[in-house]
């Protein structure tokens, strides 16, 4: 990295531990604001449990609505952690250091939020256990593994377990650092989590190998999760869902929205915690370049999905695609997806001066995720809303205020959990920052001194 500041050990520790020991007014605003929205979310969910799913806009044939759209969206966001953490770790990209921890945490909280949606969508979540785990040992009656609703929990729980273990393993050295600097309940907590870490050579070696091994193992899981989520739709016979392109299309969409969410998080961390020395303009520049490639890949699959629906000239597929592209309100949504998801952000990211502008990166990343949420709605709803042959009941889907509150509340939930996490654990990996400083060198090249990085492998 070319803009690295030489920072002392103590300075790095003090700055990265700042959110743990001080709560700035902006953090209080965040806690209170997000807490209030979260309270609305809890009330809306409780209201739905008490009165039943009739308080939502769900009806026949619209049995999947905002909650499932939100589920797919948050699963997509969860792909940020692995994209940033595992791929950049394997390729030894130096700019990963300030963003891996936050991205991994966002993966976990997004996954937890995503999992919440199908559960509450059942209306009677306590019965959901029946579908997730093998049950009723007495009669030997088991869930049918041939159905996609069993594949989903297996993939998501694998991803959640793997991501949590990945995060925890990389956090152990920082827990030891926190253990040595705190008192009271925090010291007890960090002592337990540090597992007696002392930082000898063997432990550091294992930590380094673990980073590579776990990255290599979690990447195939990352690809499988959104593929399996896409098969929830693709193995059905609903027109425009029944597409072979869905798995890679969903995965690239997840990366597009997830990496954009990391940009949002990077900007927020820079503003909230004053991490200017760590989350630098060069990081926004690098991730902006990555997003140009990812966004263009997503556009390609988006167009392929439309093309595959039109090319066979099948009447039912054409009917839904016409509904999507030319009829209100989906025609507006189509334009919004194109404009927000690609045609505003990507041309902006082409210019370096915009990639190095935090405010522009923040707002373009928000635009992408507005577009990506709309894309998930656009993918899921029109196929269900269509009137089929032999359909005895047909209606439009109009989300109720309960569903709107749940969608809004899910954003507050992830934000609130991220804030709570950063009050208890350092949001940037302290030891990885210090490792970066140890491995940094300055080289004299002709008349210029350039920053360089020592690489072991």
């Amino acid at each position: 990295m070319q803009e690295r500041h030489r920072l002392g050990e103590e300075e790095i520790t003090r700055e990265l531990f700042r959110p743990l020991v001080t709560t700035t007014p902006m953090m209080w605003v965040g806690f209170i604001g997000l807490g209030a929205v979260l309270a609305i979310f809890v009330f809306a969910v409780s209201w739905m449990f008490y009165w039943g799913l009739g308080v939502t806009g769900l009806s026949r044939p619209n049995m999947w609505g905002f909650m499932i759209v939100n589920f797919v969206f948050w699963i997509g966001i969860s792909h940020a952690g692995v994209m940033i953490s595992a791929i950049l770790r394997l390729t030894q990209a130096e700019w990963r250091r300030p963003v891996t921890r936050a991205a991994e945490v966002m993966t976990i909280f997004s996954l937890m939020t995503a999992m919440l949606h199908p559960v509450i969508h059942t209306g009677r979540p306590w019965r959901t256990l029946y579908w997730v785990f093998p049950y009723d040992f007495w009669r030997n009656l088991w869930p049918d593994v041939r159905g996609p609703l069993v594949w989903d929990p297996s993939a998501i729980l694998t991803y959640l377990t793997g991501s949590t273990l990945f995060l925890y393993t990389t956090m152990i050295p920082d827990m030891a650092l926190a253990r040595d600097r705190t008192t009271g309940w925090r010291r007890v907590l960090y002592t337990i989590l540090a597992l007696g870490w002392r930082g000898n050579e063997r432990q550091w070696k294992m930590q380094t190998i673990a980073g590579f091994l776990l990255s290599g193992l979690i990447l195939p899981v990352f690809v499988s999760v959104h593929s399996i989520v896409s098969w929830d739709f693709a193995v059905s016979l609903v027109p425009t869902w029944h597409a072979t392109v869905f798995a890679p299309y969903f995965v690239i969409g997840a990366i597009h929205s997830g990496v954009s969410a990391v940009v949002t998080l990077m900007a927020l961390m820079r503003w909230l915690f004053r991490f200017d020395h760590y989350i630098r303009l060069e990081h926004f520049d690098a991730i902006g370049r990555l997003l140009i490639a990812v966004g263009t890949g997503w556009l390609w699959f988006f167009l392929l999905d439309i093309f595959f629906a039109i090319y066979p000239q099948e009447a039912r597929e054409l009917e839904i695609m016409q509904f999507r592209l030319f009829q209100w309100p989906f025609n507006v949504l189509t334009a919004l997806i194109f404009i927000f998801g690609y045609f505003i952000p990507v041309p902006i990211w082409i210019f370096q001066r915009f990639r190095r502008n935090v405010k522009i990166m923040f707002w373009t990343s928000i635009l992408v995720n507005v577009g990506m949420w709309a894309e998930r709605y656009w993918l899921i709803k029109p196929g269900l809303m269509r009137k089929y042959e032999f359909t005895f009941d047909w209606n439009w889907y109009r989300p109720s205020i309960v569903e709107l509150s749940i969608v809004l509340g899910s954003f507050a939930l992830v934000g609130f959990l991220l804030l709570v996490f950063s009050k208890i654990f350092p949001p940037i990996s302290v030891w990885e920052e210090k490792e970066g400083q140890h491995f940094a060198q300055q080289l004299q090249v002709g008349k210029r001194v350039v920053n360089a990085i020592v690489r072991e492998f």
Partner: protein
Amino acid sequence: MAIREVLGLYRDLDSAVAAADALREAGFSRSEFEVLSNAPYPEGTFGEESGIHRLFVFPLIGAACGFAAGLLITGGTQLSFPLLTGGKPLLSIPPMIIIMYEGTMLGALIFTVLGVLFESRLPWIGRALYDPRITAGYIGILVRTAPEREAKAIEALRKANPEDILTENGTVGKQPARS
């Protein structure tokens, strides 16, 4: 035989490397001392180290266990209550592969983390000399040796300008006490 511990604390990397060299010159083998730090250094910074480990075996064992569990859940549950639906085969390979794949990966991930903990000797609940200054940036050289060689270890550690030297009986200071 009782083992005594001595911990030398060094403010900078060069002093710590010099201390490791001094220990080797004094006849201490590499297995008798370890380096404690708050961040990793490139391998071999403090001289040759014994790097034998079996971490790569753990994910393989985990993957095998996870695959077996996946096979049991998919095949076993379907066979224990054979229920034909939609004319599909009872043991349908494509959906079984999905669960078996996730099981394999889950097993590999869990066993890898267990392997990391095992090979790192964590959780560590035993007694060992340690100083919180290590996480603040100091480098610690921890010597484990026989009681009769303790004085020799202290002498070697003192050659490299330590900030402090700790023994099981407390600090002995960076310079020998004047008689």
